[in-house]
């Protein structure tokens, strides 16, 4: 009984709502209808040829900076509709084949994924690289700045064993603690430690947030810490971590992950797109292909987001408006 009455009432409410909607949507005045007409004419003027762009957003701020700058330019100057998708790398690459993802704008090198998805490496051909972003990725072992001042020779790996006891924590089982990185990242610190006979144990922080928190605290409290970090990274502009020099990278020295005894190579960060997107003739594809900027550019936008608390959209807008020539070069 009760239920029936409620449903009758709900039903009649729904019908009334439909009627009301018809009135509201039928151009019966009001500023929403006007705004809708404006939008339509803007879209018509832009030609509407660009369409949707699915931009993967991998979870670090530097990546966000690239993604939102490109997306902002695509939306405002090419009339595209960029959809940002917050995904980790691995899932992003899966999305190339299903059409869920068009662009991964900053790739740090994933040989295993390339084998699966690049046609020239025997993959299914759903993805391809369209060149470098201009950013150079530097992965390595870092210490907080106070340590580099206090112990100047610590930045040479051959002195690390001398200082190992400084880094000892309850986590590291009597050895020095080396803070391993977010599991998403390319890393072989366990191999480096054992192949260089370092008296250290790799303890994994588990996430980038955890690593940043640890370095931040180490610098503030002047406590010892050594760990995996990378540039470009907004945090380095807040706390300028100092890189420890491992034996220099030579071609092929990191090919066998178990035998690595050298530093990480410098990485030219790549732009990866879905092959379907590359063939679509979208003007956004040309934009992505031409997009190129420096580590300083990215750090600036990233610090707008992370330090100043701006939304990524606002940060992108601010940078784009301040750098018209660079943007112009991408569009030609």
């Amino acid at each position, binding site marked *: 009984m*009760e239920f029936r009455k409620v449903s009758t*009432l*709900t039903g*009649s*409410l729904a019908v*009334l709502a439909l009627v*009301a*909607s018809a009135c*509201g949507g039928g151009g*019966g*005045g*009001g*500023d*929403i209808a006007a*705004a*809708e007409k404006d*939008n339509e004419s803007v879209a018509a003027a832009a030609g509407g040829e660009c369409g949707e762009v699915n931009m993967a957003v991998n*979870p670090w*701020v530097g990546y966000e900076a690239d993604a939102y700058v490109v997306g902002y330019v695509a939306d405002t100057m090419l009339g595209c509709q960029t959809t940002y*998708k*917050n*995904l*980790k790398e*691995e*899932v992003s690459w899966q*999305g190339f084949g*299903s059409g*869920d*993802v068009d662009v991964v704008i900053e790739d740090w090198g*994933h040989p*295993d*994924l390339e084998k*699966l998805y690049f046609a020239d490496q025997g993959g*299914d051909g759903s993805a391809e690289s369209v060149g470098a972003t201009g950013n150079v990725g530097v992965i390595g072992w870092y210490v907080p700045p106070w340590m580099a001042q206090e112990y100047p020779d610590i930045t040479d790996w051959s002195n690390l064993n001398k200082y190992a006891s400084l880094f000892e924590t*309850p*986590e590291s089982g009597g050895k020095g603690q080396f*803070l391993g990185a977010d*599991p998403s990242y390319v*890393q*072989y610190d*366990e191999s480096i430690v054992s192949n260089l006979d370092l008296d250290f144990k*790799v*303890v*994994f*922080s*588990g*996430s*980038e*947030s*955890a690593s*940043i*928190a*640890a370095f*931040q*605290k180490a610098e503030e*409290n002047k*406590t010892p810490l050594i760990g995996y970090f990378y540039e470009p990274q907004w945090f380095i502009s807040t706390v300028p971590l100092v890189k420890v020099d491992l034996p220099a990278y030579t071609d092929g020295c990191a090919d066998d*992950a178990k035998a690595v005894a050298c530093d990480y190579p410098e990485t030219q960060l790549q732009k990866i797109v879905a092959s379907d997107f590359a063939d679509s003739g979208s003007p956004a594809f040309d934009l992505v292909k031409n997009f190129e900027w420096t580590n300083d550019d990215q750090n600036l936008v990233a610090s707008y987001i*992370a330090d100043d*608390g701006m939304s990524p959209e606002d940060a992108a807008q601010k940078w784009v408006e301040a750098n018209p020539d660079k943007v112009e070069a991408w569009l030609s």
Partner: protein
Amino acid sequence: MSAPLTATRAPDDMVAGTPGEEATVPTSRRTRWGAPTWALAGGVVAVWVVVSVLADGSNTLYLPGLGRTGFHDYFSDLKVDLIRGRDTNVVMQVVGALSDVFNAAVGWLQDVFSRADLPRPVPQVGYLGVLGIAGWCTLAVAGWRLAVAVEVGLVAVGLLGYWADSLDTLIVTFFAVGIALLIGMPLAIWIGCSRLARTVATPVLDVLQTMPAFVYLAPFALFFSIGPAIAVAVTVLYALPPAVRIAAHGIQMVSRTTIEATDSLGQTRWQRLAKVQLPMARKTIIVGVNQTIMAALSMVVIAGFVNSPGLGQPVLEALAAGRVGSALTSGLCIVILAILLDRVTTEASERSETLARSGGRGRAHWIGLGVAAVVALVMVYLSRLELRFAEFPTTSLGGTIASAVDSFAGWVTDHIGGVTTAIQRGTTNGLLNPLQDLIAGSPWFVTGTALLLLAGVLAGVRGALSTAVCLGGIYMTGLWYDAMVTLTSVLVATVFVMILAVVLGVWMARSRVVERALRPLLDAAQVMPPFVYLIPVLLLFDPTRFTAIFAAVVYAAPVAIKLVADGVKQVPEATIEAATAAGSTPWQLITKVQLPMARGHLVLAANQGLLYVLAMVVIGGLVGGGALGYDVVLGFSQNEYFGKGVAAGIAIVLLGVMVDRVARRAAETSGTSRSGAT
């Protein structure tokens, strides 16, 4: 057992032994073994320690953080095969088509309520209209007080700056809960009516509830594509078990005499179900719906990892940028939504009960609802017409609160960072490391034997049997060492949870003021996504195992505290008066009367606390917990390690089942022997 668990996330009983089923096996342990249980257990531990020291870290089956085994690669290869065959895989095509439907449906709802339906600059129904509809619906099912609360709550999430994200969360949650109930209710009826079905379904539900979502998130993305559909799928999987368990429990609990009485009238089985069992179980079923909603909301942030629309996104973004304040404000919105949904469904269930008894309502009620409907319609109409009624006004409130929180967090870490580090190091050196050296640092066969013997002593033959099966499984996963490290952390965390639960629970039960002050805090803490407080916890304690334990305790303690408080409060007044009259001191009253009489609730609290702690293993992996939690995150993050993540997920499930079974049997055993003695 069901009613007082406001906003509880996990199920009441994870285990085959439903509340009605009594243990029959054990009698007094003393008579069988010839020595008290504690002495035997102590003996086992003593021998274990000696052997462990002699073995000096050999045969621990340690696998480096980035090491893999053939078992792991097997699963990784399976996933690669899936990816390679995705264009021809029939199952994937079918699921893909289904998820297109989901995506379209959620997208349509978003166009109507939460995102600009381009070229229209705003959704079809603006914020004023949403307030109207939400208010009216609440009024209809739960009365005007809660309708006001809903309006205030929704305005609050809007003022905090998360109007659209909150509506997205509501859309995905309702959608997922709807599907979970659609699948869950028939299952519940089946399980409620058939013993065989229950035996089959229980382990499956156990696995669904303890298997970390990170394990199946990436492969799900292959089947469901990236979009709301995968969030719905993941949420349904996690929200299904409580729906099924509680509803089935409700159906089983319908009194046998009622069924026999109505059977004697010659009813068919269908009539019995539709006219007797379901109506009589209605209240419990609505509790199940309530628990399903809470479970679904606890997946909001996890679903954000695969781009689910909703509040998970701002939480994760804040986490990536290390912003404590905005993580908290977005987390607060989840808390507000959860508390509103909890109160509304609870009230609705109580009303339906009262109404069913009193037989409907008067005319005034319907006129009131009708008037409210007209008001709601006008609100919808206005929100479709004018931008100022459609777009939630932007305010600086959220930003102000966020920066206040940021500076407060900064102050706290600056000023007590030294103390907290000392606590972390002290606990790790004094408690965690010795325990871990014993459990994980002994040869695997020594630890295995010791655990088997302990299970046998504490929980009898059946307990030992469960332990043997689970330990065998863990050995197979190739992650024995990591599993033992995780087991250590889980045990330590559960002990801390129980200490907190007993201290605060008793205090709450004995003082109304404390109860009033603590309960809303506990409710909020229980639904606050743990991701929100990861950064402050990290800043206090560094990325360590202790940090993971601390976060798990924060997450698991509220439910245990509330259970203990409820248990102590249920001790009859007369008993307490009698004890006081006999001259008991408050301390005697607590230890000799209140706690022993709340024993059932203490056991339940320990069980729930343990389940909640286990649910935090993976999140612990994000803050330095290492071991299985790290392995799962690694498997989710890197294709080559997918199989290791699966293996770690299996190990977590096995650990959960093992500890749960042993604890339950042990509780039943000691309960029987004690009641035998008195």
